[in-house]
């Protein structure tokens, strides 16, 4: 077991939130077609409120702090927030579109000891990237930002969300990442909007294309191993936790709301009304999330993929039931291995058992 895995285990047993994702703003200078956020400012936390929360997170034992948005640099006090976070010795990662990063900002980020900067890049072609961000010139600015950050010796990661509109560009982005000497990550997940609106799910790539993505050695490593049929789940799997959300990790909105994860919008308390430790230890919602084991999932516990699926309880929650399946992950498991999930089989059964004669009430 690695040192980090050991610390995770220790944090889990002690009930310590090792990782927190804090969105400092939802405001953004881009309008990405797939974004799940409302970009209006509904009363963001002040600098003083955020600093106070960082003090509380430090006291609670948080080690990994991800600062994200919106676009973090839309806040004029962003560097003051990072400075405070670093004074408290958090491991700080930031997510940005890079559009506002020039040489001075890159230098400041390095001076503050930010461990990693994740930058969203959707295509190697300016016209495709700019069409997704709806900000003309954003591709050029983003790539320049990566160069500025790299010249400061910072660790930069390119994050590419794969959608129907940039489906064939991932190899181009990978080549660009190689040229820029930065690692590349690909995520084929488009999440529903925070308010539950699912219209943007239409941007997801077709399942049949997922199959190709999962067989790309450059993306997944050993294809045979990655796409292998799932082994039969043992007792340890059935007693396992779905993910770290609410266990050793949580998410905080710019308005102080605490959720189990950025992708799991279950309101669990608000930091303008309660202390973080009070929410973390006493929130009934977090207690409920923590009580769930794989064996408690009515459909997924019967699924062949239960031990290997990337099932996201947040996406399941947004589908209506945090103990239910997350259809997007069912599809991933299916297209990865060729074996349908229990959820898919159940839905097919529903279709095949559809009555041949439909009787409608006269009234």
């Amino acid at each position, binding site marked *: 077991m690695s040192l980090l895995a050991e610390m995770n285990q*220790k944090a889990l047993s002690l009930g310590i939130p090792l990782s927190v994702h804090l969105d400092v703003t939802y405001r953004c200078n881009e309008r990405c077609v797939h974004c799940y956020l409302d970009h209006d400012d509904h009363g963001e936390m002040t600098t003083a409120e955020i600093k106070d929360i960082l003090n509380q997170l430090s*006291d609670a034992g948080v080690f990994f702090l991800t600062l994200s948005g919106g676009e973090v640099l839309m806040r004029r006090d962003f560097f003051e927030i990072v400075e405070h976070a670093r004074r408290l*010795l958090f491991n700080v990662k930031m997510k940005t579109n890079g559009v506002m990063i020039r040489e001075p900002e890159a230098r400041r980020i390095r001076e503050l000891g930010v*461990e990693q900067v994740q930058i969203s890049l959707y295509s190697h072609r300016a016209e495709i990237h700019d069409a997704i961000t709806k900000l003309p010139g954003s591709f050029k600015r983003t790539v320049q930002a990566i160069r500025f950050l790299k010249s400061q010796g910072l660790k930069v990661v390119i994050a590419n969300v794969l959608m129907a509109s940039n489906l064939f560009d991932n190899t181009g982005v990978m080549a660009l990442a190689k040229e820029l000497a930065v690692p590349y990550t690909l995520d084929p997940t488009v999440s529903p909007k925070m308010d539950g609106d699912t219209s943007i799910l239409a941007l997801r790539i077709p399942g049949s294309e997922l199959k190709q993505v999962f067989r790309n050695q450059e993306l997944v490593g050993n294809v045979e191993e990655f796409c292998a049929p799932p082994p039969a789940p043992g007792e340890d799997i059935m007693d396992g936790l779905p993910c770290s959300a609410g266990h050793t990790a949580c998410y905080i909105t710019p308005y102080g709301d605490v959720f189990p994860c950025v992708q799991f919008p279950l309101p669990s308390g608000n930091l303008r009304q309660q202390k973080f430790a009070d929410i973390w230890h006493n929130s009934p919602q977090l207690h409920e999330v923590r009580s769930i084991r794989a064996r408690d999932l009515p459909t997924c516990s019967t699924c062949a993929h239960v031990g290997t699926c990337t099932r996201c309880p947040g996406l399941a929650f947004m589908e209506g039931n945090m103990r239910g399946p997350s259809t997007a992950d069912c599809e991933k498991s299916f297209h990865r291995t060729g074996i349908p999930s229990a959820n898919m089989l159940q839905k097919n059964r529903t279709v095949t058992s559809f009555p041949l004669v439909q009787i409608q009430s006269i009234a």
Partner: protein
Amino acid sequence: MRRRRKTIVEKYIARSSAIAARLIGGEMMIMSAVDSTFFTLNEVATLIWQSADGRTPLSAIVSDRICPEFEVDPGQASRDAEQFVTDLCQHGILTMSEQPINSPPTPEAR
């Protein structure tokens, strides 16, 4: 006249600012922002790290803080501390100087 170079235990040590650290269940967790190396320190190492304020030589940390707190042989404690400090300096977790380090000390992890 050439000035004698100080041995490691005579040097001043300070916590680097390019690190992340947190005390988790009595164990110090440290990550270097330079090379992302991850360390956990035992109780003795944690006390040395916390005492590394740039103004106290390692020998004083060992004699005034380590030996009274943990029942260890002073000679052995010095040798272990030297090895530990050398390792952490190589990863940029600590800095070492022949003179007191006047820059503001990096805060201790809570």
